[in-house]
C-alpha cells in the first residue's frame, strides 16, 4: 500500500503554503524523521519530516509550487520492495485532485498572468481523515478540520487534536484565541491595476505577504482605532543604558528598544485593563504582558514575542530579542514564537521617523509606535532647555481600552521611561 504524504499544517492558522523544494528525489529511500522537503508558510520556512518510511515513489506536487492547501497529498511512499508502479493505483484520489494550481509553478516569469498568481487556494476537495468523534467535536466547536493537524495513525485527526485546537475566527473582530500573526506595516497604497499601458513587474504574493494584507485589512476595517500621542524625555534612560552597558561588557548590549519593551510591560501591569483582547463574549484580560516586537524581514514584517516581559530583566530581554530577531530574518522562528502576544511595540525611530500611528495587530488591544529620540527644545521651570525627546503614539482598540485607560497606560509608560530607575521598584 502506498502512503500519502500530506501537506502539513505547520501552524494552526495555516491554510496553505508554498512547497519550496524537495530535499529527496523520487526513488530515494526515506526513513521516519528524515527531512524531505521545505515549506514556506505565511511566516516562516519550515522543514518537513517524514512520518513513514519507505521509498518516495512519486512526487505529486513539485518543488516551487505555491498555494498548496494543507492536507493536499504531495507525494507517495511505498514500502520497500513494492513495485513503484503500484503506487498510483491505491491513490487515484490524490492523482485526480488538482493538487496545485499549475500556473503558479513558474514564479520567476515576470509576465506570469496576475490571475494565476492570485488564484484561489485549492478547495478542500480531498478527504480529511478524522475519527467520527473528532468530526463531531469539531462541528460543535465550529472548527474546520482542514485546519487541524492529525496525530493519529497516518495523520488521522483524533479527539485530542480537535480538543487542543481553537476555532478560527471568520473575521478579525473575534480574535482567534491568541494565534494571531503579529505583523504590522504602514498601510501601503494599492497600485491601481493598469493592464496594457504601464510597465510593471508582478511580484507573486508569498504566504507572508498575503497574511500581512489580510490581517491588516481586517484589523483596520473592523477595529475602532483611536490614537494618543505623548512626548517622553529620555536623557535619564540613555544615561542608565550607558551605565548598564558599561557593566555588561562583552554581553548583549541593551538597546533603547529593550528598555521600551520592559517599560511597556510594567505599564501594562500597572494598568491591567489595557492588557486585554476583545472577543464577542468577553474581554480577555491577560495575566502576563507578552510583548510582540516588530522585526523587518525581507518581504514583510514579523513580530516575535518576548513572553512575560514584566518579570524579565533587561539583559534577558535584550538577549531574547536579538536571538528572535536573527531567527526571524532567516525565517527560522517556530510558530509559538510569533503567535499570540498581548501588545505590540513598533519602532521606526532608527529611520528618523518622528511620529507615526500603527495598525493594531489582532488579537492585541493596542500597539505602541515609537519615534526617533532627538534633541528638542523644551521648557523647564519657565526656561528654555534642551532635552532628548521621543514621541510615542498609542493605537488602541476602543472596544477594550477606553480613552482614559489608554491615557493612563501612556502616563505610566512615560513615568517609567523618564524615571527609569522606577523600573526597579
Amino acid at each position, binding site marked *: 500500500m502506498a502512503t500519502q504524504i500530506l501537506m502539513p499544517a505547520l501552524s494552526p492558522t495555516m491554510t496553505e503554503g508554498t512547497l519550496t523544494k524537495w530535499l529527496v528525489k523520487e526513488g530515494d529511500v526515506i526513513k*521516519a524523521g528524515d527531512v524531505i522537503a521545505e515549506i514556506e508558510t505565511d511566516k516562516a520556512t519550515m522543514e518537513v519530516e517524514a512520518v513513514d518510511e519507505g521509498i518516495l515513489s512519486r512526487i505529486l506536487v513539485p518543488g516551487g509550487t505555491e498555494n498548496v492547501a494543507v492536507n493536499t497529498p504531495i507525494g507517495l511512499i511505498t514500502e520497500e520492495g513494492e513495485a513503484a508502479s503500484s503506487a498510483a493505483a491505491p491513490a487515484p484520489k490524490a492523482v485526480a485532485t488538482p493538487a496545485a494550481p499549475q500556473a503558479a509553478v513558474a514564479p520567476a516569469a515576470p509576465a506570469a498572468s496576475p490571475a494565476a498568481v492570485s488564484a484561489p487556494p485549492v478547495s478542500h476537495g480531498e478527504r480529511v481523515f478524522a475519527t467520527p*468523534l473528532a468530526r463531531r467535536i469539531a462541528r460543535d466547536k465550529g472548527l474546520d478540520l482542514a485546519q487541524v493537524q492529525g496525530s493519529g495513525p497516518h495523520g488521522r485527526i483524533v*479527539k485530542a487534536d480537535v480538543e487542543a485546537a481553537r476555532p478560527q475566527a471568520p473575521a478579525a473582530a473575534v480574535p482567534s484565541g491568541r494565534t494571531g500573526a503579529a505583523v504590522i506595516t504602514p498601510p501601503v497604497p494599492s497600485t491601481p491595476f493598469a493592464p496594457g499601458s504601464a510597465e510593471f513587474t508582478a511580484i507573486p504574493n508569498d504566504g507572508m505577504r498575503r497574511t500581512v494584507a489580510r490581517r491588516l485589512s481586517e484589523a483596520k476595517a473592523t477595529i475602532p482605532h483611536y490614537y494618543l500621542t505623548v512626548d517622553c524625555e529620555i536623557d535619564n534612560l540613555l544615561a542608565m543604558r550607558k551605565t548598564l552597558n558599561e557593566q555588561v561588557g562583552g554581553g548583549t548590549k541593551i538597546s533603547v528598544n529593550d528598555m521600551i519593551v520592559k517599560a511597556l510591560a510594567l505599564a501594562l501591569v500597572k494598568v491591567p485593563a489595557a492588557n486585554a483582547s476583545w472577543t464577542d463574549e468577553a474581554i480577555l484580560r491577560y495575566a502576563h504582558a507578552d510583548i510582540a516586537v516588530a522585526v523587518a524581514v525581507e518581504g514583510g514584517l514579523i513580530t516575535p514575542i518576548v513572553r512575560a516581559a514584566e518579570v524579565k530583566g533587561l539583559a534577558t530581554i535584550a538577549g531574547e530579542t536579538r536571538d528572535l530577531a536573527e531567527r526571524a530574518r532567516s525565517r527560522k522562528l517556530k510558530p509559538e514564537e510569533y503567535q499570540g502576544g498581548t501588545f505590540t511595540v513598533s519602532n521606526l525611530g532608527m529611520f528618523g521617523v518622528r511620529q507615526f500611528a500603527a495598525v493594531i495587530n489582532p488579537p492585541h488591544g493596542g500597539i505602541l509606535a515609537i519615534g526617533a529620540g532627538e534633541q528638542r527644545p523644551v521648557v523647564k521651570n519657565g526656561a528654555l532647555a534642551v532635552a532628548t525627546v521621543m514621541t510615542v503614539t498609542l493605537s488602541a482598540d476602543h472596544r477594550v481600552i477606553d480613552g482614559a485607560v489608554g491615557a493612563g497606560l501612556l502616563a505610566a509608560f512615560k513615568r517609567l521611561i523618564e524615571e527609569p530607575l522606577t523600573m526597579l521598584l
Partner: protein
Amino acid sequence: MAERFDLIVLGSGPGGYVAAIRAAQLGMKAAVVEREALGGICLNWGCIPTKALLRSSEVHHLLQHAGDYGFEIGDITFDLARIVKRSRQVASQLSAGVKHLMKKNKITVVEGEGRLLGKGRLAVTRNDTTVELEAPHIIIATGARARTLPGLEPNGTSIITYREAMVPKTLPKRLLVVGSGAIGMEFASFYAQMGSKVTVVEALDRILPVEDEDISAFALKAFTRQGLKFHTAANLKRLSPEGTGVVAEIEAGGQSHRIEADQAILAVGIVGNVENIGLEALGVKVERSHIVVDEFSRTGVPGLYAIGDVTGPPWLAHKASHEGVVCVEKIAGVAGVHPLDTGNIPGCTYCLPQIASVGLTEAKARAAGHEVKVGRFPYLGNGKAIALGEPEGLVKTVFDAKTGALLGAHMIGAEVTEQIQGYAIARTLETTEAELMATVFPHPTLSETMHEAVLDAYGRAIHI
C-alpha cells in the same frame, strides 16, 4: 566477558516475551531472562490455567443442565486430578509455545535469577554460576505476586493463594474466598460449580468493586441464586487455621460472624516483584511496591524501563504486552508511537456468568463531569440467549450526552468476554453512537445485545 545485546528483558511473562519479540522484529538482538517457566504468571499460574479449570466447571454446569436440552444423563462424576492435570497440560503446552517463539525470533533465553549490576548491566545467577549481560536498554518485567495482609499469612494448606488454589488435590466442602476481585470471583465460581459451598468476604460495599455498580448488583444476584454467600463491607477480624480447616471472624453490617471452612483463598490484591533486582542502587523510584514509570515505561534511569504488573494496575496480561510493544517501539524510534490509553483496556472476569467491561463506569463518568446517556439491555430480550439457554445477562452502555463518545461499556452474561472487543474497537476508533447504531450486527447473536444497549441509551431499543 559480558555478552552484549541491544535489549534485555528481565522476566518472560506476557509483558517480557512480547517485548522481546517486538524488539527482534525491529532488528534488535534481544535476550530474555527467566528464573521459572517461560510465559510468566499468565501462562503458567494465571490467565491460562484458570481458564482451563473454568472450562471444566462450565462443562460440569452444562452437564448438570443437560436435561434442559433433552439429554438424560445419570450421575455426573468427575476426577479432580484429571481436571487439574488438563489445566497443567494446557499451561505447559503454551509455555513450550513461547520457547518456540523465542527460538523462531532468535531471542536468547537466559535461565536464572536476574539482578541489575548498574546501568545497562545485568547478572544472571543459576545454581551458583553467574553470567553477566550488557545492553543499552533493559526492560524490567518481573510481574507480581499475591498480596498478603498482616495476620493473614497463607500456610499452603488451609490458607492459600492462587498458586495452590489452581492445583487442588481435594475439593473443599466449605470454601472461604477473601476478596471479590477478578481472581477471587473466578475461584469462587470454579469451586462453587464443582460443588463447594462458597462464602465470599469483601471489604468494600459491593462485589467486583471495579465494575459498574449495576453489574456488581447483577452479579451478586446471579451468584446468590447459585448458592454462594457474600459478606460485603466486611471487616475480616481474624483468620486462623483450626484443626484441618480455618475459622474466620468478620464484622459486617454491625454484626459479628464466625465462618468455618475447610480452606480459605486469599485474593486481596497483588504486589510487584521489586525486591532483590538491584533497583535501589540505581535509584529507581518504587512506590507502594510498584516501579514508577512514565507513559513510555521509562523509569527515569536512562536505558531502564519497566512494564506490566510490576508497574501497577490494571494487572492484566494484555496491558503488559501492549506496554511492552509501545516501550520497545519508542526505544527503536518507530514513528508515531502513542502511549497506551488505559481507558481502552478491557477487563474480563471468566466466572459464570462472565463479566467484561471497558472504559468508565456510570458513576466514574458522572464524577468526571460528563453529562451521560445510559443504555441497558438484558439478555432476556435476545433470541440467541434464549436459544442457548443463557437468558441471564445485561449489557450497559454509557455515552457522553454532548459528544456521543462511548465512555464505557459493561457486560455480564454468556460469552461477554469474547464480545467486549467490539466496544474496545469502537473506543479506539473514537466512534460515536451514530456509527454503532449504523453497524449491522448479525442475527441471531448475543452481540445484538450490544447494539440494543446503544440504541437504548438514545431511547431507541427495539426488543424491550
